[in-house]
């Protein structure tokens, strides 16, 4: 006779709330950080619209600029900037978690790994700002 029970116990599946990310600040920060992706997609599409307007003519580009000056667009873009900054800071702070950090067989502080990213970010921002504003 085979040795088994007729009624197997059910697999344990803990029920998760649909709003689990509101349980504590760490979950919420994770959810916000991941949500930055929607704003990344939004701004990439917006840049494509800008390129399409640029490629058409000056009138179409002026219409695009007027559209961007709408208060609702400025508010959405301010929110997008906040999400991009959250992404940048959490991304740079993650670098020490994923790379080897040893000098003479001793671990180095996190800041040694993340600081160069902040420096590159600062430099890239200045250079791009000069190009975007037409100074260079």
């Amino acid at each position, binding site marked *: 006779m085979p040795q088994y029970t007729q009624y197997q116990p059910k697999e344990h599946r803990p029920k998760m709330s649909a709003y689990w990310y509101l349980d504590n600040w760490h979950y919420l920060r994770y959810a916000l950080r991941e949500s930055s992706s929607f704003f990344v997609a939004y701004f990439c599409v917006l840049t*494509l619209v800008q390129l399409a307007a640029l490629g058409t003519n000056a009138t179409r580009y002026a219409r695009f600029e007027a559209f961007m*000056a709408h208060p609702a667009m400025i508010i959405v873009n301010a929110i997008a900037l906040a999400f991009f900054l959250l992404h940048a800071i959490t991304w740079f702070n993650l670098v020490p978690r994923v790379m080897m950090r040893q000098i003479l067989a001793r671990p180095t502080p996190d800041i040694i790994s993340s600081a160069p990213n902040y420096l590159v970010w600062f430099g890239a921002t200045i250079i791009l700002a000069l190009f975007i504003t037409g100074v260079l």
Partner: protein
Amino acid sequence: MSAGKRSNEPIVWILFGMGGFLVAFFLPVHVLFYGLLFPAGMVHAPSYQQTLALVRHPLARVYLFALLTFCFFHAAHRMRSTMLDVLNLRHLNTVIAFLCYGGALVGTVFTVWLLMTV
């Protein structure tokens, strides 16, 4: 011995990782100027001709291609995981993956087309 089914996750992760760095380094300054300072009139916006000349420079085209392509795939991968994990939509994994990565591919095609015709 037959080799197991290989995961496509590493390829997606390369695109996601590259995009993550590009979003962090470059997108904030783009949205700061084109989304806030120029439209709000806080900084004088360059003319149409100046902006067109900037975008038509070969290096600018290469930069915009890399920026937009990797950012599209970065967003696609993260939007997918957000919808699966945060919104509990795991049962729609295939549809969501198709829409996200398909959307990134469409975005890339438009990027190439617009950069070639601008």
